[in-house]
């Protein structure tokens, strides 16, 4: 069990090393990468099964006793997120085997991708505040590398994206470091369990300041209002498969950390912060979806939808913090986890589909594409599943996710938040209809759409599988819901 906890990080790091050594042999590199992500999937599935059967597992590194050692702790919440990370890694790497992007991937894409995955796995496994900061830095460094690679739209596009990703994210990690320093000065601990026990002894005002600094840093990382502009400015510069992986996972690591801090380590969190988080969530939803309604590039529309959907997850977390009793809190946190799972799969799938739209029509700009219903009816069908799921049309997974959040908002009498969440759904429908209308329904603007002779079979396989998972989650949400509620029951020092 001890080694099993470390295996997700070790597997990805080992794969990263192997792909560095095979930089000159691209074919080998691709296979090593695939095998590595497959192993990661097996490891995380075994870990999830073990954690569900035997409860949270932990291991201490460095040979020190508990409050001083660097702890890795995997509970059901972390395990579910780890499984999703592995699933997304497999999806992105299989998709990368097809020739969707105009240029083949840069040889360093695979090592950096696995480095980012190692950072994500580490951030999900760790039970130490400073360690969390270090893993966030690992993710940041690898993401910067991936943004700087390649030559999609001229070097300036890459450099501009790097800069716009770098500045706000470094500000966020510095804020996180300030929070780490302040929390250590106030409590003398960095380890999650020790912090959970030490926090209630501190004055309420001090805890409010500490947790506010921490949440502010993590909110920038999850692209919440008002510091979200870096996300749509940087993601479109990435190759499609990497973009889908980032869209699925990176901001969700931020929301996971917020859930971990607000719902677990510092629970019960001061009410004023959760109230503020709820309003930030509501404004984030509206700001994201309005951005999506404005733009015409599919990638930018979908990037703005990430922001809007982050709002729903944050709203669920805020409702959990404001809940009057523990059952209600578990329902809200469970809704947050359910929403995260649904959102990661659907959002990554939509980005992968956008890549296929590009491969079939030659552009990401909705004004320059069209006629896909006639030429690729299967693509239209596969697009409809995640798009309608994102909107929240029953019986797809998004419907259940939104239902759980809305139920909790109404149960707590937060009518305004519920109303905002509902109206944002309608605006989401509008922008999905825009993609449908422009890319699929209308005729192609140029008389003779270009034919592609590129091999796209792995890409089709990936989106079919992901759409299938969305359908499956929609038809039988009980299993995931049961796992979600079970996972959040151990938060906040529960059994």
């Amino acid at each position, binding site marked *: 069990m001890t080694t099993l906890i470390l295996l997700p990080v070790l597997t990805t790091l080992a794969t990263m090393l192997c792909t560095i050594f095979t930089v000159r042999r691209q074919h080998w590199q691709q296979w090593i990468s695939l095998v590595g992500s497959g192993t990661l999937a097996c490891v995380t599935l075994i870990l999830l099964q073990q954690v569900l059967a035997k409860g949270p597992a932990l291991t201490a590194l460095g040979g020190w006793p508990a409050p001083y050692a660097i702890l890795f702790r995997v509970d059901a919440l972390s395990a579910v997120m780890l499984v999703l990370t592995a699933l997304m890694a497999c999806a992105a790497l299989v998709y990368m085997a097809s020739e969707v992007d105009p240029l083949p991937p840069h040889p360093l894409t695979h090592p950096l991708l696995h480095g980012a995955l190692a950072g994500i796995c580490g951030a999900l496994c760790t039970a130490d505040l400073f360690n969390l900061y270090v893993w966030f830095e690992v993710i940041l460094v690898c993401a*910067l590398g991936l943004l700087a690679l390649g030559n999609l739209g001229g070097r300036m596009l890459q450099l501009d994206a790097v800069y716009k990703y770098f500045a706000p994210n470094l500000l966020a990690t510095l804020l996180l470091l300030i929070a780490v320093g302040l929390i250590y000065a106030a409590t003398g601990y960095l380890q999650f369990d020790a912090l959970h026990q030490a926090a209630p002894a501190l004055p309420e005002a001090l805890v409010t300041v500490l947790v506010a600094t921490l949440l502010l840093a993590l909110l920038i990382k999850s692209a919440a209002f008002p510091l979200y502009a870096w996300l749509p400015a940087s993601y479109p510069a990435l190759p499609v498969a990497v973009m889908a992986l980032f869209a699925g996972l990176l901001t969700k690591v931020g929301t996971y950390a917020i859930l971990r801090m607000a719902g677990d380590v510092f629970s019960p969190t001061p009410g004023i912060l959760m109230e503020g988080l709820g309003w930030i969530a509501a404004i984030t939803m509206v700001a994201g979806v309005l951005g999506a309604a404005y733009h015409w590039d599919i990638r930018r529309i979908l990037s703005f939808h990430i922001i809007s959907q982050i709002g729903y997850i944050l709203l669920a977390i805020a409702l959990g913090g404001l809940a009057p009793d523990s059952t209600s809190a578990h329902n809200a946190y469970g809704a947050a986890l359910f929403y995260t799972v649904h959102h990661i799969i659907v959002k990554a799938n939509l980005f992968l589909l956008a890549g296929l739209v590009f491969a079939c029509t030659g552009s990401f700009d909705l*004004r320059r594409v069209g006629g896909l219903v006639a030429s690729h009816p299967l693509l239209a069908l596969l697009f409809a599943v995640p798009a309608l799921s994102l909107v929240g049309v029953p019986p797809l997974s998004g419907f259940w996710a939104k239902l759980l959040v809305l139920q909790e908002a109404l149960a707590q009498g937060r009518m305004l938040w519920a109303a905002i969440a509902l109206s944002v759904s309608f605006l989401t429908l509008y922008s999905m209809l825009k993609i449908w209308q422009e890319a699929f329904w209308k005729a192609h603007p140029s008389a003779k759409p270009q034919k592609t002779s590129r091999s796209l079979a792995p890409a089709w396989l990936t989106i079919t599988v992901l759409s299938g998972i969305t359908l499956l989650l929609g038809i039988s949400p009980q299993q995931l819901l049961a796992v979600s509620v079970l996972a959040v029951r151990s938060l906040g020092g529960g059994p």
Partner: protein
Amino acid sequence: MMPALVCAFWISLAASLYLVLSRDTLRCVIGLGLMGNAVNLLLLASGRLQYTQPAVVPPGESALSLAANPLPQALVLTAIVIGFALLCFSLVVVMAIAERSGKDDLLLLRHTEPEDTAPVVPSFLEKEKETP
């Protein structure tokens, strides 16, 4: 010692915030580097600063007495390494941006975003505009 450190922290944090808010790319990056150093001071102060003894166990003893707390020093060391690497990387990026485009004003860097002056025109209107 502590008042001096607090002054140093707040002055460098204020200066770095002023620089970070600038639209000039180089100023922003230098501001972030300075902020990293301010944060390092804060991390150092989160240990027991009033003891000026080194953070090692003296020979022949098994426990630390009257020594500095070693943990914040380890944290600062990690933060310095990461911060230095990121500062170097960002300086290269800023230089490359300035060399290639000749611009260092963020408002003029619109390669990843559509120009805000260009109106967003739906496709059917765009066709009408092209015909005359």
